[in-house]
């Protein structure tokens, strides 16, 4: 009787562990997008900003929380404020941005430096 119970218990544990493995592998395949490339886009910005403490942030289209947080993560210890009205602003526009920059950005900002991959350093024009 006891032997049977041990057997059932062992089988239950093995089935449970197999289901666990299956679920772990399934969860792994649905991983979040790798962020190393997103962070790399900001290489060079920090060096360019020197010991500046705060910069603003401007984006294209709807506000994307992930992109904003990643910009902050990449630029630590500089503080990236989600505010486009600061004198110096990081532009995070993604690809194919030429028309957007000409139409929406250039009237308000002067492009200080284009770091490539849709990342810009902008200076707000005096109104």
């Amino acid at each position, binding site marked *: 009787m*006891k*032997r049977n*119970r*041990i057997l*059932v*218990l*062992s089988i*239950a*544990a*093995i089935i*449970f*562990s197999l*289901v*666990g*493995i299956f*679920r*772990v*592998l399934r*969860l*792994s395949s649905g*991983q*979040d997008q*790798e*962020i*190393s490339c997103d*962070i790399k886009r900001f290489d060079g910005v920090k060096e360019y900003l020197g*010991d500046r*403490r*705060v910069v603003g942030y401007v984006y294209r289209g709807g506000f994307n929380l*992930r992109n904003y*947080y*990643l910009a*902050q*993560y990449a630029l*630590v*210890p*500089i*503080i*990236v*404020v989600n505010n486009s009205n600061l004198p110096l602003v990081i532009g995070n526009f993604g690809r194919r941005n030429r028309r957007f920059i000409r139409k929406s950005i250039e009237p308000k900002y002067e492009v200080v430096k284009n770091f490539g991959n849709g990342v810009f350093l902008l200076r707000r024009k005096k109104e």
Partner: protein
Amino acid sequence: MFVISLLQSFLLGFILVNRLLLMKVPTFSSLWWVKIFLSTGVGIGMSSLIYVSMQYLFQLTPLTIFLIELVLLSALFLYYRGSKKESYLLMIQQPLKGRIRMTEVFFILLAISIGVFIYNSYLNPHGGWDAWAIWNMHARFISSGPQGWENLFSPHITWTHPDYPLLIPGIIARNWGLIGNRTPMVPITIAFIFTFGTVGLLVAIVRFLKGQYISALAGIALLGTAGFVQLGASQSADITLGFFFLSTLILLYERSKPRNKGMLILAGLLAGLAGWTKNEGLLFIMVFLAVRFLVTAWHRNIKTCFSEYLSLGKGLIPIGLVILYFKIKIAPGSDLFNDSMAHILDKLLDVERYFNIIKWFLREFFLFGNGVVLVLLAFIFLAGVKLGKEIRRGVYTCLLVLVLMLVGYFLIFVITPKPLEWHLATSLERLYYQLAASILLTVSMFLRPWSISENKR
């Protein structure tokens, strides 16, 4: 340098644990492994605490702090080497002899889980959202010198929760500073140590108390929850917190006579490190102290309670003071408690809110970790219950701590200023994972231990 730095942290923990536990145990025995895992957690926690304090107060370089730690380590070694050696018994139940082939299943699952952890870390070296938006972000700030320290607490970026304690950011920043670059290998390794350290600690202690078969079941149940390894690989602080909960609770099974005060000091220290890991750890400290007081007062007397508190305090107070200084002088207030009293009172009187939270708690409880709760119920039904007299007090104390922790989490949800459904959906499962290893420890204590010799009878 990273390996040397980790080794130094481990040795610091090992000297402290060895001195406080005062146990002579054979190498590679279950209790030897318990000591090794405890030493790793204590060492990492203490290194983080030393690094953060020195960095903040004196702006010392990582190498200087490393050397100070080395001097401290040598001093502790020399001081304790000459001290009186006594040997206490940790727990009185002896390991069962005999072997049933469930251990092999556990090791296969462990190997697969390690593989999955490495694969996930390869896919996401910066970890999950919480890791890079909170823990690794804080580590980046504090490894950037005085400007980083100042900016971390800027009101512009309160979304990164600068009020969260600094055990994980501290140990990551320490090692980044020593290596000289912010490689993701550091947070990955720390996450690996705590994820599999929790599994190892659980299996080692259950193996000692309940034998090989039950310990393998406990390990399978923890690894089989799937989300545990996933959460570990995402570098979540919940796994680290769970490690310190488990470490503290296993010391409740102490039954030595005369009482081993060192073990209580170690329990206080580990509870303190839980508070240095996450805000939920502060709740744990309060619950742990209250339960210990109640249980001791019930079984013994008030005088013993105070004598125990004295020992617990020796471990807890130094870390508690650092946490207190951080919370009062450095960090902003928690966003969970910034509602007005009138709003909080409204929520406390809202009965529907309670039912809603209960519904979530129950649903998440039964669906949690691959249905592990149902599997555990099956284990109890099939294995039968046997609660030895010598561990009864420890089991009841653990149960009370776990129940009160859940009550504490429940009350936080009642008064949360955040949208309730969103808050429950994004955090309840993680809260269960914090307690998962401790729940498994407690459930394992109820199971009837089996061995081949018993089976043949």
